[in-house]
Each structure stands twice: as structure tokens, then as C-alpha cells.
């Protein structure tokens, strides 16, 4: 299957600061990519490049095989975008924003829009500036979904929402994905929500792509191992696929990707280990290890 979103060797600089460094990601139709990374990792920059709010210094981004940087108008009708805080016209009423936005899309589905409007209980006569953050996020989602886009870009849409609103919102996103099967990129700091929605994750740090894998595979093949060293000195040989390591007196914690029993044996044999134990880790721990490992480099 060809990728619905293809980000190929994209580099973006702001002056001397490299926000994205040669990043390549593909997202297939029907799959949901969770984009993770600390603040300033380049997540929002990458998503702004995908929706053509910024232009890259190098590289190419295509949606359904068409470049987003040339003849942008037809491509934009295939994209639904929800920003961290949807910056809609604050002086328009909800009805006016919907009517204004719908006029630009030939593929606008009024029936679906009305369904979403009723589901989200949006107050049509209220001005956008009078809406709560949760309502504004839902309105943003309605505007992004009602033209039934092939590609959905969600840039931290749940940030700042209270737990109940966040839970509702995640449910809304899941419903929308189930109904339409678009290719989705979801950027978020909320790992539990990402794990609920995404099928695969990509981790960005300092503008570099550290990992991109299906979540299940990542959890299955990445292991954190606690090794108690006999002499408390870091071994000279490290296992392959090392993501992060930490030595605290005799306890050596190692996180390894593409884990195999052979790697475990290597650890046992080569490093004067008195004990080796595989620890259960979740997505949050793995994410932290990736980031710590990258920052240590």
C-alpha cells in the first residue's frame, strides 16, 4: 500500500537553529501515527510543514502522491488539521465559522457535520471567543472532519483539556477514525492517550527521528534490563541496539531495542554480571529512555 503521507528527508532551519534534521516518515491510509517528543523536539514544526504553514529548507512532503508545496489548493481539501489551540475567528459565531469553512470545500458532508454538531452539543449561536477550551477543540475537530479528509493532522489537540473533556475528545477522535479510516498523525505529550489511539509511534528529539515503529512491536522488542555488576564498572562492550543506559553503583540499567535472547546472553557473559533481570516497561518508560538516550548523546 502506498503511503498517504510521505515525509522524505525534510530539514527545517530557523536561522542557525535546526528544527528538523533530515526526517523521513511514511503514514499509510488507515493507520494512526503518534508523534512523540519533548518540548522543542520539532513535532509542531513537522506538522506545520505537512499542512503547508511552513516551507522546508530541504526535502519533500507528499499527500496522496501530490506535493503539498505546489498547487496547494486541491491538496488542502484532503487535509483535516486541528491545531493545539484552534485559532478560529474569535468574533464569528459557531454557525458562521462552520458556514464560512464549509464554503471552501466541494467535498463538505453537511449530514456528517450535523451529526458531529449534535454529538458534540455545540452552541451554534455562541461566539468562538465565548467557547470553553474543550468546546473550541471539538469545533476544531468538526471543521477538520466534516469534509471527510484522507489525512488528519492533530497537533496536541488535547492539551489543556480537563480529564473528562480529554477522555470525551479521545473518544470522538477514535469514532471519527473508525468512521473514515484516514491516515492520522497525532502529536501529544499524553502517552496514555497516544497509546489508546495510535497504531504506531515516531519519537522525535532535537529535530531528529529516534524511532518509528508499530506500538505493539516496540513494546515487544524493546526491553529494559537490570544488570548487577560484580565490580561496579561499566563494561567495555555494549550490546547492540542500545537505547539508554544508567549506572548507579553496581546496578546497570540498559534499554535495548530489537531485543533477542542472544543479546541477553551477551550481557550475562561479557560483563561480569552477578545477576541479570528483564524489567517490565510500558510505553512511557520506553519513551523516556529514548529521550534520555538521545539527550545523553
Amino acid at each position, binding site marked *: 500500500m502506498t503511503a498517504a503521507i510521505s515525509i522524505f528527508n525534510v530539514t527545517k532551519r530557523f536561522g542557525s537553529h535546526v528544527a528538523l534534521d533530515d526526517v523521513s516518515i511514511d503514514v499509510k491510509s488507515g493507520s494512526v501515527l503518534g508523534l512523540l517528543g519533548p518540548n522543542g523536539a520539532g513535532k509542531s514544526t513537522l506538522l506545520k510543514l505537512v499542512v503547508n504553514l511552513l*516551507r522546508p529548507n530541504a526535502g519533500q512532503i507528499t499527500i496522496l502522491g501530490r506535493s503539498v508545496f505546489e498547487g496547494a*489548493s486541491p491538496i*488542502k481539501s484532503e*487535509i483535516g488539521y486541528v491545531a493545539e*489551540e484552534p485559532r478560529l475567528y*474569535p468574533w464569528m459565531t459557531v454557525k458562521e465559522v462552520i458556514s464560512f*469553512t464549509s464554503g471552501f470545500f466541494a467535498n463538505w458532508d453537511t449530514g456528517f457535520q450535523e451529526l458531529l454538531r449534535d454529538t458534540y452539543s455545540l452552541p451554534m449561536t455562541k461566539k468562538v471567543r465565548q467557547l470553553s477550551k474543550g468546546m473550541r477543540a471539538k469545533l476544531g475537530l468538526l471543521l477538520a472532519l466534516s469534509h471527510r479528509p484522507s489525512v488528519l493532522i492533530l497537533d496536541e489537540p488535547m492539551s489543556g483539556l480537563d480529564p473528562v473533556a480529554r477522555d470525551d475528545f479521545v473518544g470522538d477522535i477514535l469514532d471519527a477514525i473508525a468512521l473514515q479510516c484516514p491516515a492520522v498523525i497525532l502529536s501529544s505529550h499524553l502517552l496514555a492517550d497516544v497509546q489508546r489511539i495510535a497504531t504506531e509511534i515516531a519519537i522525535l528529539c532535537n529535530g531528529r527521528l529516534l524511532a518509528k515503529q508499530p506500538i505493539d512491536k516496540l513494546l515487544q522488542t524493546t526491553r529494559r534490563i537490570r544488570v548487577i555488576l560484580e565490580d561496579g564498572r561499566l563494561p567495555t562492550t555494549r550490546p547492540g541496539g542500545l537505547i539508554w543506559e544508567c549506572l548507579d553503583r553496581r546496578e546497570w540499567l540498559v534499554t535495548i531495542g530489537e531485543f533477542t535472547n542472544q543479546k541477553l546472553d551477551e550481557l550475562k557473559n561479557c560483563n561480569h554480571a552477578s545477576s541479570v533481570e528483564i524489567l517490565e516497561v510500558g510505553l512511557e518508560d520506553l519513551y523516556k529512555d529514548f529521550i534520555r538516550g538521545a539527550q545523553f548523546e
Partner: protein
Amino acid sequence: MKLLLWKDYRLNRFVLIIAAILLVCPVVIAGAGVVWVDFPYHPDSGDLHRSVWIGTEIGLGLSVLSLCLLGGNSFAAERIDGSADFLATLPPTRFTVLSSKLMLASLTCVLIAAFVYATRFAVNVATGLSESHGYPVNWALCCTGFGVSWLSSVVVDSPTYAVGLGLLGVFFVPLSVGAMRAAGFLAISNPIGNTVFGIALGTSAVIAGCMLYQRKEKP
């Protein structure tokens, strides 16, 4: 285009109301003043004619401010509340966005001109006089004010700064023409110099603003 025009009208509705007040009030005050002074007798037709003409000229002079407000609001107002980013994610191209804003400005200019000329025509007919009390330089300064604030609005994020720069541009025209005449670089009269320089500066600022907006990374 119709939607964008509606959006630009709504965004600038307050400015357009101010523009209408600044344009109409001087004419009404001038006309009413002559009637008030001569009451209970009919006003002298020459006084009425002169007053209304000067009223339209003052209205036109104040329209410089209105057009600076309109130009300064063009891009910066949407950038300051972030709605420019929202618009940039929608299908209309930058050229269409630009065209809508220019169309609103053109319509405003046409309405200002229509009011001024209709009023002058009406007072000419009513008084039977036809001599001119107008100064073409006001049109040129309207063009300068709009152009410079339009260009500034593309560059700066604050509508207030953009309007301020537009007004500075308006003052720059007579000052520079005066300076050039004093230095001997210009041999034409002040009104002609101001008119030509004002129109040239305003037009080039509008064109530069359009080109810059098309090439700018952030909308």
C-alpha cells in the same frame, strides 16, 4: 471569493463605520453650519457651495486615516489572533486571499469617491455654481496612507504599528517633496509634487506588499 469578502468586511466593519462617520460628518457639519448662521433666511448660495466643498475636502482628508486603518488591519489583525494560520490551512490560495482584501479596499475607495462627487454634484446643482474648491493632493495622500500601512501590515504583527507607519508615510510625502524643492532637485509646484510622489509611493507600496505576502513563509 464571496466568503472571503464577507469575512474581510466583518473584520473591518468597525473601520468602515469610522470611515463613513469621518467622511460624512464634515459635510453635514459644514452644510448645517451655513444654514444655522443664516437662519431664519436662506443661506447664501456661494457660502453653502464653498462650505460643502470644503466639508467634502475635510472628509477626504480624514479618509486618509480611514484608509490607513483599513490597510493596517489587512493582514496584521488576522496574524495577531492567529486566525491567519487557520485561513492558511483552508483551500483558498494566497492570491485569492489577497484579491479579496484588495477588492474590499477598492470598494471602499469607490464609495468614498462616489460620496464626494455625488455631494459636490448635488451642491453644484442646488446652488447653480460650479467653481472648484478641491485639492487633488488628498487623493494622493489616501493612496499613500493605504499603501504604506498595507505593506507594513504584511511585515509587522501589530495593526497599530502598521497604521502608525501608514500615517508616517503620509507625513513623509510633503516633507520630502518640500525638502527636494528646497534642495533644488524638484522644479514642480508643491501640490503637483505631493500628488505625483504620493501616488507613486502608495502604488509601489501596495505592489510590494502583494509580492511580499505571496513570498512570505508565514501567512
